[in-house]
């Protein structure tokens, strides 16, 4: 058996949502420690690194292998799952169909050939000095507020006042949200400011809203790294998002 596991439906759904925020298909790696994937979106603007430890599962056994998942399809299938149900996954050796059973339903999901999916990207080696930790739902709310007036948002840290700020400029309107020391935990309050596309942040924000804490790393006109845990600490997600250049 390549993979045999049971997992809480909610945890699986959360994991699928985290991946589907960026890509419609991915290479999923399994080994004895759990499952993981790393993928960039088709425009090479955002990357997800995802790892779900075997402790997130009720039961888990797997050999080292690589599966091609049609994330968009799986998201549709799992859309009908109720919460707090157990779900069993099974993939025989050399199998191309993932068996999924829950609530009396038995699915057989055809996998994609991993070779047709883009190879795992390398992780860029970048130095992001500004580091803050804030609540996922606060972050998502600020993103949603910004999306009303603009399609881009600046994230930054002002070391002088020790504040983390988000600014969105629309054609006619402007919105600014500052987080002081009481709301944000400054790990490193180095100066930082970069501009990002809200198209991406909106989708990522929905996923991050479920995380109690998100660790955000920023630089000056550099990518942003969002790191947070799911599934009671047993799942870890990292989003890396390339910046926009400030318009001239």
């Amino acid at each position, binding site marked *: 058996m390549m993979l045999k596991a049971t997992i809480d439906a909610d945890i699986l759904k959360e994991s699928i949502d985290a991946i589907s925020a960026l890509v419609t298909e991915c290479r999923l790696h399994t080994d004895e420690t759990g499952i993981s994937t790393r993928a960039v979106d088709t425009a090479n*603007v955002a990357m997800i690194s995802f790892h779900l430890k075997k402790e997130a599962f009720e039961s888990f056994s797997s050999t080292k292998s690589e599966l091609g998942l049609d994330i968009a399809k799986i998201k549709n299938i799992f859309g009908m799952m109720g919460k707090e149900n157990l779900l069993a996954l099974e993939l025989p050796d050399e199998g191309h169909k993932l068996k999924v059973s829950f609530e009396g339903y038995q699915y057989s999901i055809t996998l994609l050939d991993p070779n047709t999916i883009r190879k795992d990207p390398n992780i860029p080696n970048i130095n992001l000095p500004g580091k803050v930790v804030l609540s996922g739902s606060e972050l998502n709310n600020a993103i949603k507020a910004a999306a009303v007036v603009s399609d881009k948002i600046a994230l930054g840290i002002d070391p002088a006042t020790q504040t983390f700020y988000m600014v969105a400029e629309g054609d006619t309107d402007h919105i600014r949200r500052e987080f002081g020391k009481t709301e944000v935990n400054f790990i490193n309050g180095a100066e930082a400011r970069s501009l990002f596309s809200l198209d991406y942040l909106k989708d990522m924000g929905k996923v991050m809203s479920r995380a109690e804490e998100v660790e955000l790393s920023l630089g000056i006109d550099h990518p942003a790294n969002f790191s947070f845990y799911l599934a009671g600490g047993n799942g870890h997600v990292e989003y890396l998002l*390339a910046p926009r250049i400030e318009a001239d």
Partner: protein
Amino acid sequence: MERHCAICKGKGLCGLTRCPIKSRFSTLAQVRPSTEYMGCSPSVFIGSYGYPSVRGGPLLVNDSDLPTDWLAKGFLIEDIARIRAGTIRGMSVPDRFPGTLQEIALSSVPLDVEARFERPVAPDLMFDGTVAPVGLSGSMKAFSVIDNAKVALPVDRVTSDTDLGANEACDILSRSGIDVYQISRLLSAGLLGRKRKVVPTRWAITAVDDAVSSGIKQEISRYPALDEIRLFEGFLFGNRIVCILLPGDWKFEMVEIWDAKSLWAGDKDYLVRDDETLKKKGYSPISGAYYSARLGVAEYLKKTGRAARVIVVRHVTGDYWAPLGTWVVREATRKAMAGPYLRCPDLSAATAMASQKIGFSYWIKESRLLAEQKYQRTLQEFF
């Protein structure tokens, strides 16, 4: 009051009883006070007025009703307007003469028909920017098809399958080499899908453009990205189409500019834009032309096996004095994509070249895709 003609296109949103723009063409239609018609019927027409209790029937004219034929024969806008002004819509409730509409729609060649009208056919110009205009109409009291329909094999197969959804049917037909002109005819005559009913022609045209190009879109999204910037250009009846293909995943944006005093524009230039990624939300404000242009580009990308980001700029001058239907945009785009292309070294060269072809550059700041392309960085730049 601000004019909305470019959006309305004769639907009557202004509240006037007669569309002032439509009135300009009514003089073209020559009245032929005949109560009979014997000749060809190349196609069917279903009106959208009063939906779902619509009226429609055969198009009666000794012509193929195929824009590709008109272009192959080198017709000018006047020639086409004249043919269409003399075309009759034989009207009745759609099931008055059972099976006849379906037979005409199924056939790959025009069929010989006979029609008798309650009163002599009268000028009743119909156009809306999506459908090719039709000049005359008459209420039919008798109608029969004399010929036998010549049915292509894929058409026979798909229309016989009542478990096949309409979207999928469009996809299969287009893959089998049936052009969108016949597919929309089939959809309009109620020959596609599970729950079959006649579909107003203007809706069918756009629905088929959308269904076929959405299918192709999914396919090309899996192709490797184009590796250079290409610029295409086509011109047809006062419509200039400039198309920029950029390396990247499928994204599509269309900017449409109507010159001041051109067909649907008022006293000022009128610009409307719309875009999409793999998913498209809602109906485009550009209306049918958006889907027709998208089809033309998607067909090209499918043929070349590449994914790309696409910006289509349509510039309409006063030379486009009769609204011939969205097929003009479809064929202008196809013509552009079939022609040679310019390889551009970078984005600013491409936009400069496009502006030069269109004659002005203010469209650039309206394009969201260009802005994204210019300002959004990729992760590679940080490796």
